[in-house]
């Protein structure tokens, strides 16, 4: 009913991924991975989660840092905070849609704690980093007892607050493939207030234009907060693929996107409003992504 003090738990602070995996194996379902804690500690204060063991991964250096490789693209450690992403010129240049997202998440204070890994592993439908990462074709790299495996961020989610990261695995980093020429993505978030708010609807659009700078060669649209998990909108993408992107076509894609989502009515917005807003934001995100491509090729 009301927020309480933290329940009792045992705190572990391994210094390596192997150490963390060992603890996860030992404590199984009684353990939770603890990174920024901005979701987890609140859930514990609400008694929604009462893990007996917290595996604090913040001492693991391998989970930190942002780097760029001309072949592989961007590598973002799971422990990278939203504030680090926001302040990174690399992110702003190579993954502007992700930058869009982190700038409108929570508050500046919370952004200094909250991590990209935590945002994905908490797996709430409105996770802001998910739609841009999905749109950019990003992959999540997981470490487990049998070694590493790679999953598209798009395939990382199972249901509300449930990811496909197994209990004996940890997310180590995100890999965003090198984005082709004449491509860009944008993320738009609709909130009730101008800051410190959850997305009512979040839409990320990625477009890659043909040499003519008009025809849509490749497109991905990802929606947040309008289904049990962040989702792609393939039908809307089909509307655009191979065609010249005009405002009318973007609007049509938006209309299609509005029919593929399955939002709920809750305190924050009604189902109908959310569907309408998917239409508007999809249109705007597609137009914004295109205009970013055009602006960058102009320069």
């Amino acid at each position, binding site marked *: 009913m*009301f927020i309480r*003090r933290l329940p009792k738990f045992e705190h572990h602070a391994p210094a390596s991924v192997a150490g963390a995996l060992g603890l996860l194996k030992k404590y199984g379902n009684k353990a939770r991975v603890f990174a920024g804690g901005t979701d987890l500690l609140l859930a514990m204060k609400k008694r929604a989660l009462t893990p007996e063991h917290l595996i604090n991964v913040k001492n693991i250096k391998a989970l930190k840092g942002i780097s760029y490789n001309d072949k592989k693209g961007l590598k973002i450690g799971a422990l990278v905070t939203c504030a680090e992403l926001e302040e990174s010129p690399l992110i702003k240049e190579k993954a502007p849609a992700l930058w869009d997202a982190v700038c409108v998440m929570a508050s500046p204070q919370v952004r200094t704690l909250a991590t990209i890994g935590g945002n994905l592993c908490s797996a709430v439908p409105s996770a802001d980093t998910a739609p841009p990462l999905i749109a950019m074709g990003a992959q999540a790299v997981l470490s487990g007892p049998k070694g590493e495996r790679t999953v598209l961020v798009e395939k990382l989610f199972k249901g509300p607050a449930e990811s496909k990261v197994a209990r004996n695995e940890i997310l180590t980093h995100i890999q965003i493939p090198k984005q082709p020429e004449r491509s860009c993505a944008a993320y738009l978030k609709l909130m*009730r*207030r101008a800051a*410190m*708010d959850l997305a009512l609807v979040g839409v990320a659009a990625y477009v890659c234009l043909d040499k003519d700078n008009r025809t849509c060669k490749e497109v991905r649209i990802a929606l947040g907060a309008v289904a049990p998990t962040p989702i792609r909108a393939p039908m809307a993408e089909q509307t655009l693929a191979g065609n010249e992107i005009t405002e009318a076509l973007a609007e049509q894609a938006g209309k299609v996107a509005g029919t593929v989502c399955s939002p709920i009515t809750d305190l924050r917005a009604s189902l109908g409003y959310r569907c309408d807003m998917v239409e508007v934001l999809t249109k705007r995100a597609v137009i914004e992504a295109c205009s970013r491509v055009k602006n960058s090729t102009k320069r």
Partner: protein
Amino acid sequence: MAEYSVVGKPVERTDGRIKATGAAKYAADLIAPGMLYGKLLRSPLAHAKILNIDTRKAKALKGVKAIVTGKDFPGIPYGTRPDTRDQLPMPVTKVHHFGEGVVAVAAVDEDRAEEALDLIKVDYEELPVILTAEDAMAPGAPLVNELSKSNIAYFSDFLFGDIEKGFKEADYIREETFSSQRVTVGFIEPHACLAEVDPTGRVLLQGSKQSPYITWRHMCRALDIPVSKMRIVNPFVGGGFSGKHDPFDIDFATVKLAQMTGRPVKTVLNYDEVLAAYRQRNAMNAKLKMGLKKNGQITALRTECVLEGGPIAGIGPFNIYYFGAFQNVPYKIPAIEYHGKLTYSNRAPCGTVRGQEIVLAQYCLDSMLSIVAEDLGVDQVDIRYMNAVTSNWHAANGLIIDVSGLPECIEKCGKRIGWKESRTSRPKGRGIGYSCASHPSGVRLGGHFGSSVMLKLLEDGNVVVTHGGTEIGQGSNTIFCQMTAEVLGIPFESVIQGVSDSDTTIFDSGMFGDRCTYWNGNATIAAAKDLKRQLAEIAGAELKVNPEELEFKNSMIFHKERADVKMDFLTAVRRAYYEKGSPLYGRGYWAATDIDIVDWKTGRGNLAHGLDFIATGVMVDVDRETGRVTLIKGISADDAGQPIHPVMLDGQVNGGSAHMTGHALLEDCLYDEKGRVLNHTWRDYKQPTALDTPEYIVEHVHTHDPYGPFGAKGAGEASSCSSLAAIANGIYDAVGVRIKDLPITPEKILAALKKKEGK
């Protein structure tokens, strides 16, 4: 205009550095030796009989020192007015709202106290829930408050002027309904207190209190102890906005736990408890019927208002009264009929919020004025200017407005926001909303309404000010130091703010209704003059001149015509201390005596001095696709008389505007059908952030109030009264849809746009 040395200057706030650096101690920061920690078990139901409370297991838990329920109190009801004593410290026979404190525990630490709460078993029998005023007034509705025989907690029926004649003379009459939601108060610091009991049984309470005198009186009554058996000391308070006047379950429980254990007990709430179970603003349903001449001149107004206020009357009777009384300003309305009702319900108990229910009254009135102006084809600024109250105006209810800068405020605001230009061209989706408001500088609601100040002159020439007001962020401590320095002709830095302590500071009816600057300010001047008189006598005797001919300036006392006949201020002080052995005190009190004490039955009388005025223009952009409203610019032209501290005055005006943007657009306390609160977190209760507020500009219209201290009027609440209608009118101007039920959400705007466009 008088030349002042300290008054009217932007001196450094007395509490600025200590608050900005985090060094200020609030109630939650206090620690006493041997202190226990209190926690409250809250009702999960909105309306239920308490059948049994089993505390045996909790009592047996190691570290638990005492447990309190409603039965531990003497059973004496208290309330704001003698005829509305409908509250008990904690519930005895039934719970009245979700989150009501039912049992309190004191333990050696907070974890132990929480553990004890888990071990307490309360058996309830659910009762039907009253959620709205309509529910409350339905025939056969169950009674909410066991101390009252009706679900109507209070009512007011006023008739001012000749209403029939007023409507007969009207060329145009329109009727509209408006409604407003439950909103929280919005201070930063959640309720907290530390209670201690000395060996004689005397209680010391240090809490986050806005009007300690009200808390003190109500608590002593309900605890059945004389006021001398309780001392209240106020630490720093993190905002009030009318949410911290009266005592709550937390205060009563903490004192009782301290009495039972003989140890200090501190209880600190989480904000989710505040959002769920403490003071909110009344929900409102109002109907207005306005008659006007073709040219826009108002001839008559009939207003019905129903406020739903939770399970207590609280200050609701004042809210109902204010709603009716303040239809008489800021416009000249010759005839007004008013019917107001306050109902009980099983939602959180209401107090009020900044601007009191004048906020709601003005929202209705100025929305209505915008509607009829358009109907009649009269310009929005012109209709306000034409009807604006002017100086020496006698309103229909008997209220006398001595000085009104409102017409000038309207002109200034219109110019600054570019109203005229906007009529010829403006970007699509952009609009400008206009509203005015007026707020009294403290109504005399009862005979005991008064303010007092004590000055102690130290032997080094510095002065300590203690006053009955409370520094709740509005800057009262600073301005009384300014006023003292001005009268005594000493530097601002020579005046020190003393502690707010019921043993040394004198009673004050409370921090509300824009009364602090005005009432306590006049008391400060009286106290400083008292001190000045004593010093002048000392100096006059030595200088061999008439003390009345002495002036005080630049730390000197000198003859007003012979500048060479003079004495250092400090020399006079030393004469008193070191030669006469006489310490010096200045004593001052003020209660407006040439206005009428409120007549609750008729609502008639000259209710208050110092009506302050404001004209607000808000520029908005509305996104037609998402329904989102962006506030671009907010201009307020205000008449607060003589500004005492111009920077803090700006802060007050802008603070009121920003505060109400939430009420207009975002905030809403939501309940399910069983009366359970749905959004008692800052995540789901949407208060505006700085990014939700526009660029604010304040234009002062400098007037001189004949009764105000240095000609000042109150200032903190008028802007909150003009903000709602300005935003609503701006949205209408932008996209042509009028939402008459607050808050104005994007969904409501889109739905109205669709309807308008025939979709």
